[in-house]
């Protein structure tokens, strides 16, 4: 559980276009690491390489190494399906499976992994929903479709679905960008709880959010249109927001970005 991630000399491409240039960074276990930066800087792309979701896009590929507790997930012997079972992901807009009930949504990953025991699935569903602070709101309507929940509840349902398979790492791609402030707060509280058990990497547009929830922060920037994004600075969140090493980080944080 809760593995560390080491990204070594990673270049990320969409076809011929290089989207992210030569990133090396280290994500510590049981902490929250935030990726911040302007649109198009490659932070989401970087996140999606950590569970091999990047290559789902046709023509997309990755060079370099991503080590999960020392094991390269891009080694030729590694099955991307297995990587995604170990590294869970929560997306920008909540995406529960519309035809499935709340309970079936939560255990969808387990069913894929081959768990069939109904009692066991029910137990895990409850655990995961409790873990995602959703149990009390949905315990009376587990057999209702997941699409009937509010946006914030749907997102927590997706988090429950992701943690139900007990991944080692949880990736979150702007998980609150489609949510209202109250739901956002609920998710942020949840992130703080989840980091006791999981390594969490979160991409966010919201700098206050990064400051609130993360321990480490990576600032990505893109020098110009058509150029690849770069990791400008990776540091303790406190340092990034109080006294960053790089001027570009300082400018971005203080809103003097341009």
């Amino acid at each position, binding site marked *: 559980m809760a593995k560390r991630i080491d990204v070594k000399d990673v270049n990320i491409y969409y076809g011929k276009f290089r989207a992210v240039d030569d990133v090396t960074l280290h994500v510590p276990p049981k902490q929250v690491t935030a990726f911040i930066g302007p649109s198009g800087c490659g932070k989401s792309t970087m996140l999606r390489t950590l569970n091999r979701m990047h290559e789902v896009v046709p023509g997309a590929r990755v060079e370099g190494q991503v080590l999960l507790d020392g094991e390269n997930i891009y080694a030729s012997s590694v099955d991307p399906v297995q990587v995604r079972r170990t590294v869970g992901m929560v997306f920008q807009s909540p*995406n529960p*499976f519309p035809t499935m009930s709340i309970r079936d949504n939560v255990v969808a990953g387990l069913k894929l992994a081959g768990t069939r025991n109904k009692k066991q699935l029910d137990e895990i569903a409850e655990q995961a929903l409790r873990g995602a602070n959703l149990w009390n709101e949905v315990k009376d309507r587990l057999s209702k479709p997941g699409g009937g929940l509010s946006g914030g509840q749907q997102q927590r349902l997706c988090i429950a679905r992701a943690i139900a398979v007990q991944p080692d790492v949880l990736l979150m791609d702007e998980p609150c960008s489609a949510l209202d402030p109250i739901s956002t707060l609920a998710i942020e509280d949840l992130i703080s709880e989840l980091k006791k058990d999981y390594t969490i990497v979160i991409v966010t547009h919201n700098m206050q959010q990064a400051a609130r929830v993360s321990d480490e922060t990576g600032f990505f920037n893109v020098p110009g249109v058509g150029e690849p994004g770069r990791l400008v600075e990776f540091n303790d969140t406190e340092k990034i927001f109080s006294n960053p090493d790089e001027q570009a980080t300082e400018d971005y944080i203080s809103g003097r970005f341009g």
Partner: protein
Amino acid sequence: MTDENEVMTNTSADSRKGQGGDPGAEPPASSWLGQGEAAKHRRADALFRWLATGSGIAVVSAVSLIGVFLLVQAWPSLQANNANFLFSSEFDTRDAENLRFGIRDLLVVTVMSSAFALVIAMPLALGIALFLTQYAPPAVRRPFGYIIDTLAAVPSIVYGLWGIFVLGPFLVPVALWMNRNLGWIPIFATGNVSIKGGGTIFTAGIVLAVMILPIITSVTREVFRQTPVKHIEGALALGATRWEMIRTTVLPFGRSGYIAGSMLGLGRALGETVAVLVVLRIASSPATFSIFDGGYTFASLIASAAHEFVHPLPTGAYIAAGLVLFILTFVVNAIARTIANGKMQRL
């Protein structure tokens, strides 16, 4: 709120009076809504509404008029019929004084050939649609899609000729083998025409399957293509293999479209005329519910007799058959609609 009012104010000329000095006050509705403008909008709206409603009514009345026409023309013949219309296998209209016609065989042959076509075409179309949307490399997708669509452009008479001269003879060994080994099942039993001749429902059904394949495939392909990316990615991120992703997202999402497309295909198969007319051999005895029967479908029978539509009474017999086909396709469409509306979502 104030800003909004000001913006609105500028759009209509007569609204400037009486409210400029007091931005906080709620303006009287008539002043800034611009009554002249609104009246114009209402006229355009009404015109469009009548156009749309009119189109709707035109379609509904066209369909109803066809039904009325069929009923009116068929009624005298049904009155003069000396055989049981629903259960007789006879269809003898040579003597206008003694009409003997029934639709039993027509219904059996029509439904069996179309159902058989559907049994073959549905899984095939599903496979092709999945291949084209999920598995095929982009370079293959387009040309392959075009080829499938081209199948829809082949004239049905060509299908008929191909069916009776190429496919039929080619399938004779298969048909004989099925008849020999599965003959104990009624639908594979020896029918009322020669299997060696190839002019059986078996051949016709396969021809029909090829003909309805493009429509089912293209409808299915379109709905599969519209599966939301976020659901696909959600499944993949959970550690689904490609097939598992398809099973959890693409298939549930596209199911009603697939079924609706299949029903469209079924509608086409039920009404197909020339190809079936060319393929099916004339039978001398009643249908036996075997796929190795011959005979006529509703459409092929009517087409075969078209040159004899001289006297109203015998003609009415064929129109009565057409009426039944009309009702049959109506029922199929109703079923398709029910399914597409998701009333059978939980399959």
